[in-house]
């Protein structure tokens, strides 16, 4: 399936490059692109890595990228050690957290490259079964990351999740140890929405509070959560990392009262409310003001949606030359059009037309771009067709309305989220499901009466009745029976064998690489022993 798609992409890309060549603007240089390098955000790195490998294959373009965190990326740009930087937030001339101000000495421009949702990836099991349908309100999330809620069976979490019997397990918030745009986006959202609880304002350096662990980079935090010992952990990371790791993300409550997952459409809908700085003379031209997103009352909105930006130089200085500008602008043209095709699959959301057009103007400012922007009639961006009005966003228009079970209240959808697509058994009625171990019915009195039979009857797929609840569940937070009733209506498919394979994902492959190297070290010496024979002496 994927190879076919790849081939179509490749074909489309080839056609596109052919068109450019015909257009002639940079046909001379198109053959040999000068390698460029950048650094910064790990939030958008998954998308960027995909694009880099695509252009390397299709156009022989070498784009080096180092995901060192947005703060380091901006710093590298200021110091002139990279050709471009990627960051979620603009240069901080007056950082709220008191760190040194960032003022580049050369001219630059911001250009959005991709949209996405800062998601909350978690690793939680109820009696050995992975929970994939957790929902949380913004207030609960803020309390978790400020150390006010420390246990998964907190009343606030139970209220958000009527269908889950939350286990008594310590919450381990996993935060970024490096300066990060993801931290900045998350803290900005908390400081705007819950200023009384989050008082430090927007900061790239997430403070270590309470039980929290700090890990480096998006890979670090998602890697921690996806390990076995990460059970009970929750982190904030771009949606794509959860998809890649095969782990679920929290559905976050929006202002319309729905719990929404940061899928491409819900991010696209949310960002229709983003205010973009359209003052071309402003230093922060094209940067985002997200208050409208946070407060959007569209029920399809994922509130923590945002754009990621590339910072491109607009003058030749230091290591940046027009040759490099040619590569950079060609790469950015690819990103804005062709590259957006894969945004959804990767766990991001494609850019809408108005930003593609604005980005196109920014590309023209890059020295060496030859003044070539993006031709929207031939742009393969999934959010618009040729001839659409710039304010249109096909993706947002066609975004599905949320399911009724995602509405705040006593119902809860059971379908999986993020990279964990399997449904979660309904356990929250305080009952242990069906025919399971006798010992598990030690639930608090008076709740789980008919719930057990309800859930199993409804979810008639493949369960062998191991919907157990060995933990000290107490479904008292909600009226157990009514919740169960509602859930059975929405198809409480309990699937006991649905643990996603933890082994897939980059962590395991990294481990395999390490193991391979070690193996090589072990195997090599015997092979070399012949040479040693001569000089081995006592």
């Amino acid at each position, binding site marked *: 399936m994927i190879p076919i798609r790849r081939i179509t992409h490749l074909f489309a890309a080839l056609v596109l490059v052919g068109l450019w060549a015909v257009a002639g603007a940079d046909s001379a240089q198109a053959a040999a692109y000068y390698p460029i390098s950048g650094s910064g955000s790990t939030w958008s790195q998954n998308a960027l890595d995909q694009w880099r490998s695509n252009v390397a294959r299709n156009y022989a373009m070498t784009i080096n990228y180092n995901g*060192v*965190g947005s*703060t*380091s990326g901006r*710093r*590298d740009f200021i110091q002139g050690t990279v050709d471009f930087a990627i960051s979620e937030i603009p240069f901080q001339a007056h*950082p709220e*957290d*008191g*760190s*040194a101000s960032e003022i580049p000495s050369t001219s630059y421009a911001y250009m959005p490259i991709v949209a996405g949702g800062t998601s909350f990836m978690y690793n939680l099991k109820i009696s050995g079964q992975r929970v994939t349908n957790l929902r949380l309100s913004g207030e609960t999330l803020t309390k978790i990351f400020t150390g006010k809620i420390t246990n998964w069976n907190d009343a606030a979490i139970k209220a958000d999740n009527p269908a889950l019997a939350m286990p008594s*397990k*310590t919450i*381990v918030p996993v935060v970024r*140890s*490096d*300066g990060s745009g993801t931290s900045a986006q998350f803290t900005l959202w908390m400081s705007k929405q819950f200023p009384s609880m989050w008082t430090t304002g927007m900061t*790239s350096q997430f403070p*270590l509070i*309470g*039980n929290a*662990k*700090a*890990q*480096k980079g998006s890979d*670090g935090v998602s*890697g*921690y959560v996806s*390990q*076995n*010992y*990460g*059970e*009970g*952990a929750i982190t904030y990371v771009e949606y794509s990392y959860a998809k890649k790791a095969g782990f679920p993300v929290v559905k976050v409550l929006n202002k319309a009262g729905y719990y929404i997952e940061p899928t491409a459409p819900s991010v696209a809908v949310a960002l229709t409310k983003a205010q973009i700085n359209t003052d071309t003379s402003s230093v922060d031209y094209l940067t985002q003001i997200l208050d409208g997103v946070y407060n959007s009352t569209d029920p399809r909105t994922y509130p923590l949606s945002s754009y990621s930006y590339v910072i491109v130089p607009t003058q030749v200085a230091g290591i940046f030359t027009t040759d490099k500008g040619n590569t950079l602008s060609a790469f950015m043209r690819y990103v804005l059009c062709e590259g957006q095709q894969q945004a959804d699959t990767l766990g991001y959301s494609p850019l809408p037309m108005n930003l593609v057009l604005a980005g196109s103007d920014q590309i023209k400012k890059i020295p060496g771009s030859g003044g070539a922007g993006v031709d929207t009639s031939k742009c393969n961006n999934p959010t618009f067709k040729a001839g659409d009005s710039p304010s249109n966003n096909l993706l947002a228009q066609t975004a599905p309305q949320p399911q009724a079970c995602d509405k705040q209240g006593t119902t809860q959808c059971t379908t999986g989220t993020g990279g964990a697509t399997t449904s979660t058994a309904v356990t929250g009625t305080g009952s242990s499901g069906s025919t399971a171990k006798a010992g598990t019915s030690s639930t608090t009195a008076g709740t789980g009466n008919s719930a057990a039979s309800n859930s199993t009857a409804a979810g008639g797929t493949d369960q062998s009745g191991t919907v157990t609840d060995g933990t000290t569940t107490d479904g008292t937070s909600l009226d157990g029976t009514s919740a169960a009733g509602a859930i059975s209506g929405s198809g409480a498919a309990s699937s006991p064998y649905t643990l996603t394979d933890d082994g897939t994902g980059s*962590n*395991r492959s*990294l*481990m395999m*690489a*390490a*193991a391979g*190297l*070690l193996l090589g*070290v*072990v195997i*090599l*010496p*015997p092979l*070399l*022993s012949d040479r*040693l*024979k001569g*000089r*081995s002496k*006592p």
Partner: protein
Amino acid sequence: MTLVLDEAGLALAAPDKARAINVLPGLTDRIFRTVAYAAGGITVAIMVAVGLFLSLRASTALRVAGFSFLTQRAWAPEHQIFGVGAVLFGTVTIALIALAISLPLSLGTALLLSEVVGGRLRGVLVTLVDLMAAVPSIVFGLWGVYFLQAEIIPVSQWIATSFSWIPVFAVTNADGSSATDASAFTSSAFIAGIVVGLMVVPTQTSIMREAFTRAPIGEREGAYALGATRWGMIRTVVLPFGTGGIIGGTMLGLGRALGETIAVYMIISPIFDINWQVLKTGSNSVSALIALRYGEASDFGLSALMAAGLVLFVLTLIVNFTASSIVARSRSGAESDG
């Protein structure tokens, strides 16, 4: 000529004086001498330059922080509050744990290589140990994070529950109750220490092996002749002879463990408090701190990191000088130098 004749009395004493030998070294000798002196000189000059560079760059931060730099347990250069108190503690903790792991391992390996196995097998094993030193530390780090950590947690839990009466092995929650969750044991100084310990094993092994193989054959055979078993011979001849090698190798390993960066950086969850509970999440080390923060540091922040680097530089220098002086003063070391 005339001068000698005039002062005949003095001339009589003159033959006793050693004749000044004017050696005119050949061209190759001169080239060799120049190269050797230059190489040695440049090495020393580079060391001094590193120290000087660190001191210069660190001076801005050190002037602000003063002596509290060594005691302060926080890292916020933007607020002028920073110091390596806790970081230094973490560095030393990790290094000591590493030594506790590596010392028995390398001592055993060195004895095995020098006394037990022989012939081709020894050559292969020696190469294997040396190759272990060539494994990049990032590989050790990846292995530590993605494999060892998950596997070692039950061990940590067992130590914490069985030996909780030893304060450093207890793992407690914020409220003082003992922690049992696997998550309380991740990213700890213990795990980082194990990985670093395995990394310094080859260094220590080769130094110890070198010292052991130098144990005089006459003494060895003497011990055997007096009826000693192999172990008896090792105990009475090899180990006493190689004491300098053991201590020196250990100290050199310590020097490397103190400076190990990437593996520690990948494993620990950096904190700026002194964490006595080595099995519990959270530690820090100077080099990991520098690796983590230098990319995003402001000029002043960079100066503060340089100051931290200077402290580590001095610490490592002290350790290594102590090590080399011990090695040189020991019997095996003196013979190897002589």
